[in-house]
């Protein structure tokens, strides 16, 4: 009898929040590991065209990016409005591609080098001339796996 009365007299115990930081830290680490920080800031304006036959690029560590587009508004004064190539975090020309690809290969284990993909993120308004030059340089550099980056088109053509 006395046992029961004793218990009812006590105030309800609070839920311990001591483990809350641990839970949050776990979430934090999850996000830190999963997300890939964008390694380069975009210097050119890229609005990729739309397409339907898309493949998803699987391994991000095996993908290098080549951006082509007009220089961003803040560079318009120094670089003009003609489409430019961006490799890594700087403006480049198609002559720099061979070195860029070679450098990227260095950082990839030898047995994975065959699956390196170059993702061309090209603005839809750019003319094919510059794209063709890039493609030729890539072929000369022996980098034949290429991805034309595009967005999913939902509806019909035009």
């Amino acid at each position, binding site marked *: 009898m006395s046992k029961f009365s004793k218990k009812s007299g006590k105030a309800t115990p609070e839920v311990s929040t001591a483990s809350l930081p641990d839970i949050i830290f776990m979430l934090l680490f999850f996000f830190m590991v999963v997300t890939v920080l964008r390694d380069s800031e975009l210097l050119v304006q890229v609005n990729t065209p739309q397409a339907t*036959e898309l493949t998803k690029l699987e391994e991000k560590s095996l993908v290098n990016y080549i951006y082509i587009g007009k220089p961003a508004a803040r560079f318009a004064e120094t670089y003009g409005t003609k489409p430019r190539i961006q490799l890594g975090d700087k403006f480049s020309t198609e002559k720099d591609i061979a070195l860029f690809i070679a450098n990227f290969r260095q950082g990839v284990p030898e047995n994975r080098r065959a699956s390196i993909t170059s993702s061309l993120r090209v603005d839809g308004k750019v003319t094919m001339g510059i794209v063709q030059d890039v493609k030729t340089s890539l072929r000369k550099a022996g980098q034949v796996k290429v*991805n034309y980056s595009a967005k999913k088109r939902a509806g019909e053509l035009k």
Partner: protein
Amino acid sequence: MARTRTRDRMNNEVNAGSMADIAFLLLIFFLVTTTILEDKGILVRLPPWSDEEPDIAKLKTRNVYSVLVNAQNQLLVRGDLKDIRDLRKDTKDFIVNPERREDLSESPTKAIISLKNDRGTSYETYLEVYNELRAAYNEIWDTESRKQYGVDYEGLPIANKRAIRADFPMIISEAEPTNFGEE
């Protein structure tokens, strides 16, 4: 009196309640700054570089489906001005040639698509055309797969995919572009 109080304070633990807030701040920072960059696109394999141009003139005209895109983004398919919306169906007809017509490909294995553009063609148009050609093959593979195995091409094991691709090989040959309209 004062003495006891200091001892009390020394026994106190550091308040860990604000730890959660700090972690939350970090978490929100990471959530905001990181972009989960999803990259999708049309995956192609460029031909390895060789100094001589492949000679397409040796092939029979009926086996070559030539697609030209000019600097005004107009489409010339086998000598006729065409609308891009008809391209997919026409390409499929050309490859499969169900009615065994004399002017379309002899067999799907012999069909070659030759794509040529100008340096002034917009990338958007180029990719649209390329997308349609790729879609034509994807649709052919899909129909064939459903006919033979009753499932979509995507769901097939690799060996069966290879078999279908051997019957309908995708050959899209890209010629060196002309240079009439580059700005």
